[in-house]
């Protein structure tokens, strides 16, 4: 049993948010300008994520070469110190089932949104480092990738914003943290721009079908807010860069 009330009758969550509030959302763009073609650093609550995009570039292996479109490869590195207790696993975490699943989900989410056909015979390599995690990690990864891809200048149709929603009894809770994630079943959404199109819908555990609509509604609204936050951050960053460029 958790130490605190997950959602109090007064309508407050364990960390003091209300049901429809996002966590703190802060981004920096082009953080690793020398190491990668596009990069971003994202803090969504206590999730801290570095995303590096390399490419489009010539693939090192022939097998990665596709004559019609670019190959998208995403690798997620969850650092051993990302949780409160240091991960004890000795082997390579990259081959963990959970991580592999996450990578596949991410590739599927972005395959259709990036205009890969513009870059045939190349590879776009996305590398993610999770420095700290606190629930709803997949949603945050999506946001990080969106920002880094835009920074890399890869053509895409629209923003994709990710967010996790939990269902506590009958109340949907937006943007769950790790305590909440452990206490209830959650849905992760990837929403395309300001539309109601989903590029990712992942349900862990079970959600009653009659509640799913509710959950999706608040999730999409939350994702739209995240899109706006990313948009503002990007525009501010762009302005600064244009200013810097004109100074030179």
């Amino acid at each position, binding site marked *: 049993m958790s130490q605190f*009330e997950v959602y109090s009758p007064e309508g407050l969550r364990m*960390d*003091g948010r209300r*049901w429809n*509030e996002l966590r703190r959302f802060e981004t920096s763009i082009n953080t690793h300008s020398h190491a990668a073609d596009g990069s971003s650093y994202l803090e969504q609550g206590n999730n801290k994520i570095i995303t590096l995009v390399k490419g489009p570039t010539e693939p090192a292996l022939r097998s990665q070469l596709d004559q019609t479109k670019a190959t998208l490869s995403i690798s997620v590195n969850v650092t051993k110190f990302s949780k409160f*207790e240091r991960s004890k696993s000795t082997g390579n975490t990259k081959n963990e089932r959970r991580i592999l699943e996450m990578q596949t989900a991410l590739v599927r989410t972005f395959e259709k949104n990036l205009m890969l056909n513009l870059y045939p015979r190349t590879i776009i390599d996305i590398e993610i480092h999770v420095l700290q995690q606190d629930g709803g990690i997949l949603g945050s990864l999506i946001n990080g990738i969106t920002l880094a891809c835009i920074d890399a200048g890869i053509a895409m149709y629209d923003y994709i914003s990710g967010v996790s929603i939990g269902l506590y009894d009958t109340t949907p809770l937006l943007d769950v943290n790790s305590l909440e994630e452990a206490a209830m079943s959650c849905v992760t959404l990837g929403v395309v721009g300001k539309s109601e199109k989903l590029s990712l819908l992942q349900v862990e555990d079970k959600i*009653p079908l009659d509640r799913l609509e509710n959950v999706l509604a608040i999730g999409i609204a939350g994702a739209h807010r995240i899109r706006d936050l990313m948009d503002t951050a990007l525009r501010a960053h762009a302005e600064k860069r244009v200013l810097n460029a004109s100074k030179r």
Partner: protein
Amino acid sequence: MSTPVIAPRKKRLSEGLTVTQKVFIRSRNGGATKIIREHYLRSDIPCLSKSCSQCQSIVVPDAKNELPNFVLSEDPQKLASLGKHYVVVDTNIVLLAIDLLENPDCFFDVIVPQIVLDEVRNKSYPVYTRLRTLCRDSDDKKRFIVFHNEFNEKTFVDRLPNETINDRNDRAIRKTCEWYADHLKSYGINIVLVTNDRLNREAAKKETKEENYTTRSLFKYADMLPNADEIKELIPNLDNFSDSSDILIDEKSDATFPDYYSTSRVMGGLRSGGLYQGNIQISEYNFLEGTVSLPRFSKPVLVVGQKNLNRAFNSDQVVVELLPESEWKAPSSLTLDSEHFDINDNPDAQGDDGDFTGEGTTAVVSDKQRRLLAKEAILAQKSKKIQPTAKVVSITRRSWRQYVGQITPSSVDEKINGIQNVFVILMDKCLPKIRIRTRRAQELLGKRIVISIDSWPANHKYPLGHFVRDLGDVESTEAETEALLLEHDVEYRPFSKKVLECLPSEGHDWKAPVQLDNADELAKDPLLAKRRDLRDKLICSIDPPGCVDIDDALHAKKLPNGNYEVGVHIADVTHFVKTGTALDGEGASRGTSVYLVDKRIDMLPMLLGTDLCSLKPYVDRFAFSVIWELDQDANIVNVDFMKSVIKSREAFSYEQAQLRIDDPNQTDELTLGMRALLQLSIKLKQKRLDSGALNLASPEVKVHMDSETADPGEVEIKKLLATNSLVEEFMLLANISVARKIFDAFPQTAMLRRHAAPPSTNFETLNEMLQKRKNMHISLESSKALADSLDRCVDPKDEYFNTLVRIMSTRCMMAAQYFYSGAYSYADFKHYGLAVDIYTHFTSPIRRYCDVVAHRQLAGAIGYEPLSLEHRDKHKMDMICKNINRKHRNAQFAGRASIEYYVGQVMRNNESIETGYVIKVFNNGVVVLVPKFGVEGLIRVENLTDDVEGAVFDEVEFKLTFKPKGAAKTRDVYVFQKVDVQVKSVLDPVTSKRKAELLLV
């Protein structure tokens, strides 16, 4: 456990929302972990006072678009010295005095800071639940609210360097008081912080220069109330001690009980295997002997003696350590009860009377030796009569609740009019006397009272408690009924307003729609379209006479192909009781209806139970129907489940139904149907018995009440008619069919009922007795073997002997239990007593909550309506099962206790000589069962003979030899012996309990 690291930064996110980090270090298993969590501070947390004009504008709606209720009154209680005031309580007050907070005569308009709620939740979850209930249900009268001080930016406090977490939390409470006082100053409402912590009160004085709020100790606050005298009585005992100056308890009298081991020592011991954890069960015959069932040992481990029990209460969760082999014993063959033990103790004495300080210094045993000891112990259990013994070294969870008892007259000093210490003997004889302080001792003599236990310090021989309320005179029906309901934890208060609001607004005028395809009705209830109209079927119900909550009805019809169509129709309770409503919550927590001799405590409100759901004759009612096609030999050809609307043609009593079936002149279709049902039921029963269903017995009797005076008239042993078993067989069939269906649809969470096979150890003593005395044996290979061997246990000279063996075997059985299907593997679903592989309860949803769940799951399984998440979640199902198992057991005990009480009342008027059977033989007495009254009683050696020392107990032969009073020759009493006993009812002067007293003739 944790220390602050650095003062965290705060960052403003938007208007009214700031984020900061909670950083602390958690140490667990010797390692340290730094924990960082986000913590959002906001400005939209209202004070919830009706008089406040600012907070109304800041509130925001929740997910259901509802605004918070402003609860605190604009005109709160006014006291001379405090003026109009709201009360803020701290954690200790809640933990100590939750009873007082719940009292309807004091504590109005109480603010519970969130930090207090969290602390309470961590310390005691039951108290937390009670506090939350209080906040939820106390809108108009008590007015309790939770104020989220931790999330309010104005009341949040950072932890200072070197400040302990407790000091920080106390400061947070004070900050809350300060904010409230400031906030409500202009409305003339004061804030009183009630805390027993002196340092906290002093700090409050120091911090706030203008003293905008006041602090009081619980005792001082209660003192100021208009009804101070009554309220002060109810303050927990502990409090008076620690607050007054006579706290310096005689330090010399310390070593009464050994101290409990430290937490780390217990944790270490449990891990290394030197200590064991389990629930302690105090013997009902000897209150100084307990047993702890441990998974490692085949038999329970004994805990003998006050010192080894070390303040454990019945059913506490305890940690025990094995004693050296030299102290192992066989279970005592003595009987002892606390009522007659140490009656002369003085309640004012602080503690030891020297009688158990003698033993105590056990040699230090190393861990390795301890493990060896455990091996020995397991071996000893297998081979010898001697059992390993253990001592309690720690109590992990107390089972303390409120208890009913009465003050012992001998402990009251009639000359004192002020406060005095008195002993209270509890109804439950497994428990020790409780010492309470009261000024109303004389007034309360001869009354049943409710007390609550506060503590049991090591230097007190008896636990300390305080008076809660008085139920009325001993032996008055109201007091006794209420006492036994309280003792068995049966919720008997009337249904709350919130629950009653869930009932259909039409009340008794509710009618099933005449036409199922009527557009208006369909608009009201779209599910109506899925209901089947079965009003043309000739349905009738058969119940005990005078039954008003009719759960079930039946019909049968011969089909053209020679098979029978048989329908069981069960009241459609779930049409009215939807998940998530207050009504459902109340039903789930009550779990079952409780039947007492003169009273019925309903699980669901009367309107549903006896009218809208009850399948009364001549009216349309909603039902959940199971319809089979059965062939001539009662094999199931086909089964179908549906929600339906039915019209019962007649409500029979068992006798009426029997008469109608037996009457050859009746040849109408209804009677033909009933005859068919009877024929089929006989075949069903035979099939069941063939596959090994048990036919057990209980000494149950029924008390007839005089209809005019409501005095108990006579006692009657329950009779069974063929029609009883008619109904029973079809209910079993329905339950089995439904169990299969819901298990099929919800393999992980189906609500089922199982009955485990009894372990052979349970039957050891009984078999030994049978072997020795009658040269008979009960075999346990299978339920079939058991049933057959029971049939063979016949004494040609004594008809009742077989029943007696059945009664005694019943007591060796495991209890059947409710469970969800994910909890056991399919092989363990078996119902041993009924000899079926899967079983559930489906047929009495009016009086059992299991059936309500089964109904919902069946409705989900047939696609009538989607099953709510509540019944698809293992965790939630686990909670439901645990609760209904407990409530079911309590209800049975309460029912039996009620019969026992009334039988006592009946016997009071007619003393007689009856036939009894000896069922147990002890060193100092025998237990005799009197079938006519269904009572059993202990006859002590003292009452059998003048020469107590001369009585000889033969353990092997189950024989007690003694010289009867006034007789020259000795007499032997064996187990199973038929004896004549004089039965009379006596009022025990010490306990003022009426008991059947038996005397051998």
